[in-house]
């Protein structure tokens, strides 16, 4: 039985809301949540991304500039190599360089540029507090404007979202 207090009041005139979980810290997997959140905000929606586990690197001041594409166990990656070759030194750098070239040739913004665009549209960035504790990341390591949040705080935000996706 649901108590009356549990009912979430919904304002019919409130904007739609997108709640994303970004759990992967590779260059290729940084794009989908940033593209979706930027698009949602462009549609007039509220949008928030919860960066958890490796996904936290996307809002890490230093690491966000150095995200890479895995050359190993990534059969659809930019360089399609057998795992034995993909494990060789330099293969990850090669795959990363090729992905960056693809993006640049297609006039796609870089990850830092997407973060700037999303942030400019009011997209909220939630940093997973547990990941920060486990991986030794401090608030100062993160880009400006992040909200440090645990699972309950993110679920509270996501509870009234119209679209929730895990990336």
């Amino acid at each position, binding site marked *: 039985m649901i108590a009356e207090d549990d009912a979430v009041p919904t304002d019919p005139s409130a904007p739609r809301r997108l709640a994303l979980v970004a759990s992967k810290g590779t260059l290729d997997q940084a794009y989908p949540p940033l593209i979706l959140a*930027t698009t949602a905000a*462009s*549609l*007039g929606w509220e949008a928030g991304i919860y960066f958890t586990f490796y996904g936290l690197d996307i809002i890490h001041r230093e690491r966000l500039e150095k995200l890479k594409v895995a050359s190993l166990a990534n059969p659809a990656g930019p360089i399609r190599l057998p795992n034995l070759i993909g494990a060789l030194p330099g293969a990850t750098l090669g795959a990363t360089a090729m992905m960056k070239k693809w993006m640049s040739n297609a006039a796609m913004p870089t990850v830092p540029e997407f973060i700037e665009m999303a942030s400019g549209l009011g997209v909220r960035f939630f940093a997973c507090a547990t990941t920060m504790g486990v991986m030794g990341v401090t608030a100062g390591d993160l880009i400006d404007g992040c909200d440090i949040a645990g699972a309950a705080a993110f679920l509270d935000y996501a509870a009234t979202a119209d679209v929730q996706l895990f990336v």
Partner: protein
Amino acid sequence: MSGPAFRESTPRLTLDCEGLLCPLPVYKAGLALSRMSPGDLLELVSTDPGSLADVPAMARQRGDHLRSVVTEGDRHVFLLEKGPAR
């Protein structure tokens, strides 16, 4: 999607998004529409085939009106009218 005739004096902005892929046409159109007044017109030019689905969806979600779409080759010209303030 044919709407009323627009007066010559209706403010009109043209946004060239040729060569850009999703989400850039929608991102740029969203920014432009946010700065416009209800009734103003935005002409969006795109070569992204996805924009044929994206621009109508954007208009629906934002509450703006897509007045026309003209396709010539791989070039799509969308005429959007900024909707009422929300």
